């Protein structure tokens, strides 16, 4: 932290130094000096071709009360190989953002229920899943299997939709609270 007082510049690292500085500026002590140091800078190298994007014109900021939701979305973004987990996380946020019954008969809820149980025999879920993904049928129920490509593709579609919806609601709330995520 640097403090500029008229033409003087002070480097501050803790509250003790601030107290010391206040005393100095009040004339209670004759001098102020602290050790200055520069941290080593790590360098990373990148390869590949990527076009640079313009710098954000508005400073990206997320209000403190949305840190938890931001963290959930950040984690979900990193779970691209686990669309079932992405769907569950995004759905958690949708439940937070939307009114209690808003998702009651939503296909997204059925997709979430499908991945949330070892086998699922809820009538609406079974009907929907069998119509979209016949290979999930197991007796009178349905079952999600992570090693089946068609299951992953189906769940990925719903995970992406859920994430998009959750991000839209999240970004609206960021904006309402005076923040910005530069989109």
């Amino acid at each position, binding site marked *: *932290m*640097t*403090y*500029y*007082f*008229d033409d003087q510049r002070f*480097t*501050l*690292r803790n*509250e003790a130094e*601030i107290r010391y*500085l*206040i005393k100095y*500026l*009040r004339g209670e002590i004759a001098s102020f000096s602290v050790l*200055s*140091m*520069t*941290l080593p*800078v*790590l*360098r*990373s*190298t*990148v390869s590949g071709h*990527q*076009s*640079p*994007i*313009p*710098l*954000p*014109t*508005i*400073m*990206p*900021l*997320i*209000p*403190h009360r949305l*840190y938890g939701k*931001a*963290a959930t*979305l*950040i984690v979900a*973004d*990193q779970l691209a190989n686990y669309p079932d987990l992405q769907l569950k996380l995004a759905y958690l946020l949708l439940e937070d953002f939307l009114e209690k019954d808003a998702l009651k008969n939503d296909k997204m809820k059925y997709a979430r229920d499908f991945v949330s149980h070892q086998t699922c025999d809820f009538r609406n879920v079974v009907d929907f899943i069998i119509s979209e993904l016949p290979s999930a049928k197991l007796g009178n129920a349905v079952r999600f299997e992570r090693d089946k490509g068609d299951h992953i593709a189906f769940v990925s579609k719903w995970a992406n939709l859920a994430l998009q919806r959750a991000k839209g609601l999240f970004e609206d709330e960021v904006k309402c609270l005076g*923040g*910005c*995520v*530069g989109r």
Partner: protein
Amino acid sequence: MRRLQLEYQIENISVLYEEGSVPWPNAEFTSQKGLTANLKIWEDDIEPEQIVKTWKNLEERGESFQIAMKYLGNHSIIFKKKIM
């Protein structure tokens, strides 16, 4: 001028931004080569007695920016406070 300023060296940026500086209100972000950057945030007209409170506010603003950058795809971004 009575200014309190906090400066971060930022590393491991994943999103490739154009090189250069952008001014924001009471802040300046400078994107550098090698996916690193520098952020300065400050408050003006700060009397010595206001430093502690303002310092906390600046740190909160830095944290808020850090989380926003992670949300924007910079999952491994590292912020280091610069001591000059």
